[in-house]
């Protein structure tokens, strides 16, 4: 799959053919308003995804990673959310869609899987019925055909004795099994884009790796594009081609997964790598990132990471750094990149 790397770099170049891009997010801002407080969850994210590419958005809680993902399907509460910028998926302008267009788009062009599969299913219908219903609604086929597709999907996501399992209710499935069922549901209308919001975080270690391997295999077979949201660097390494690190509502570093993990350049990414506990560091202090992420109802001016950054100087607290190109698609938004080269 060496050619994959080539497409990836081509995407970064300005002359990339637009047809190759499945997702194009430009200057996305998401603000949540309550009468008392405004939370600036996402503050100007630019992100593209090629067809067949797997991207991980890596970040901590409150970094805006899930909000960015949900904006792609407009799953945020309409009345409280202000979305600006542009989000295009498969040539369609998501932010301009009517309700009708949106319900055609969801499931068919883009589908999402969540951390909590039990919440994705209705507890009073069997999982088979729910998958069949989705297929019938979107493709106008009969219920029998819908059920046949559900069975095929259950086989595909490796649910043992699939036929019997279709009749199960969500609570009858174990954690890993219900996650597989949710993946089947998401794939039921052959989406071009799969959005995954921490789908393995709540799973046990031995089950997590099974689900990651399954997603990788399905992605390869179906040629889907995937955006995977996680806080776990190891999961990102297992699943993705490219990584985008988010901090305080902005992208701080993007690049091929190997590059970002082997040679991170943004001080936040570096801090994350160095603060990881491991066996080799036993008995030593961890070099933790001091402080805590900023309050997003009043984000600091300039670089949001500056108050916690060992390299920060006066510039950092005043002006926002733009993305700098570091070669072959690796980019970081930092004023002091000169100091972070290894």
């Amino acid at each position, binding site marked *: 799959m060496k050619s994959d790397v080539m497409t990836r770099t081509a995407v970064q170049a300005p002359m990339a053919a637009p047809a190759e891009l499945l997702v194009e997010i430009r200057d996305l801002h998401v603000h949540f308003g309550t009468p008392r407080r405004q939370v600036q969850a996402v503050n100007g994210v630019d992100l593209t995804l090629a067809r067949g590419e797997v991207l991980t958005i890596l970040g901590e809680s409150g970094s805006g990673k899930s909000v960015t993902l949900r904006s792609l399907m407009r799953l945020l509460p309409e009345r409280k959310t202000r979305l600006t910028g542009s989000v295009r998926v498969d040539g369609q302008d998501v932010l301009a869609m009517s309700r009708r267009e949106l319900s055609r788009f969801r499931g068919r062009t883009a589908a999402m899987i969540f951390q909590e599969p039990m919440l994705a299913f209705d507890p009073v219908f069997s999982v088979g019925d729910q998958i069949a219903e989705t297929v019938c609604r979107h493709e106008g086929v009969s219920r029998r055909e819908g059920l046949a597709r559900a069975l095929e999907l259950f086989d595909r996501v490796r649910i043992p004795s699939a036929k019997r399992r279709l009749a199960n209710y969500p609570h009858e499935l174990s954690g890993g099994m219900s996650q597989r069922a949710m993946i089947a549901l998401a794939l039921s209308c052959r989406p071009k884009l799969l959005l995954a919001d921490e789908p393995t975080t709540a799973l046990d270690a031995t089950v997590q790796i099974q689900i990651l391997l399954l997603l990788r295999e399905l992605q390869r077979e179906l040629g889907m594009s995937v955006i995977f949201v996680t806080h776990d660097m190891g999961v990102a390494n297992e699943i993705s081609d490219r990584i985008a690190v988010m901090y305080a509502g902005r992208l701080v570093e993007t690049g091929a997964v190997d590059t970002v993990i082997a040679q991170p350049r943004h001080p936040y990414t570096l801090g994350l790598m160095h603060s990881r506990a491991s066996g080799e560091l036993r008995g030593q202090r961890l*070099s*933790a990132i001091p402080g805590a992420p900023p309050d997003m109802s009043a984000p600091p001016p300039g670089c949001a990471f500056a108050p916690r950054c060992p390299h920060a100087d006066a510039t950092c607290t005043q002006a926002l750094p733009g993305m700098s190109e570091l070669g072959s698609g690796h980019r970081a938004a930092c004023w002091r990149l000169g100091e972070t080269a290894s």
Partner: protein
Amino acid sequence: MNVTPMVTSDPRDRGGKAQPLLRVKGLRKHFVIKRDLLGRPLSRVHAVDGIDFEVRKGETLGIVGESGCGKSTTARLLMHLLQPDGGEVIFDGDPVGTRGGLSLREMRRQMQMVFQNSYASLNPRMTIEESIAFGPQVHGVGRRESRQRARRLLDQVGLLPERFAQRYPHELSGGQRQRVNIARALALEPRLLILDEAVSALDKSVEAQVLNLLGDLKQEYGLTYLFISHDLNVVRYISDRVMVMYLGKVAEVGDSEALYRAPAHPYTRALMSAMPSLEPGRRTQTAPLAGDPPNPIDLPPGCRFCPRCPLAVDLCRASEPELAALPGGGHLSACHRAGEVQAEVSNPQPSVEESVR
């Protein structure tokens, strides 16, 4: 009192350094989930099914395992938050909760616990200072002295008392709340701290801060930790010894490095190769186990792990292996084929391979 030359400066230390701080024998807890018409139990969850272990003075013992393995139930049984069905807990030579032994009240003074959910474990109507001072007051420390102790502890866990003492739990971040919980656990000056997934809900950058704090406090107060977690990297970092649990039983115990380098139970080995790879360019190629961990209701005869075990033989299905010492001592495994497992690991398994990208 048994005065040996090894006696430490802690006046509460009774048996000397060689005596384990905590010794657990045959600890058992079954939850009945279904009864027949006469109230007789029909089916039960074998949450903790007879486990033996000890925690040495001044060490950190890590407990790892997946959901349903009984690690949290064990912690709750030790604190008597749950009533054990059987077994013995001996704290520094004194049996806990029996006539003539250590009373529960006295035991809780020496043993404290920090939970995963930092918010649920604090009273939302008490200020941070009140929460921390509450324990000492219950145990007869004066009001003013308890408050002073609370402020001193807040300072020690890295929260400025002037800024934080009067705040309520909802005004703090997750990391700050967990620091408060640690301060509260230390307010009674315990000797053993049980940390049940205490850093699991924290963001990675905050997790490292709290791990450092735990290291500092351990040195300062000469604490002993029982560190329960599902995160193998963190457990390896913090623990001197590690105990692996599976379906209510101990699968393996040993020195941290020895156990990670040469696991002697197929389950431990599977857990380790299930960790996502962090090496650039290397990805896991095959999952070590299929399916979910079974629930501990209907247990198979013989070894509990054998239905999922790649090495299972007839012996495993017929008889349950005892936790037995491996040659060299200190390393125990409950596997009939422990020796072969270890030998196989020393010729590394090709579970992680160069991926084609």
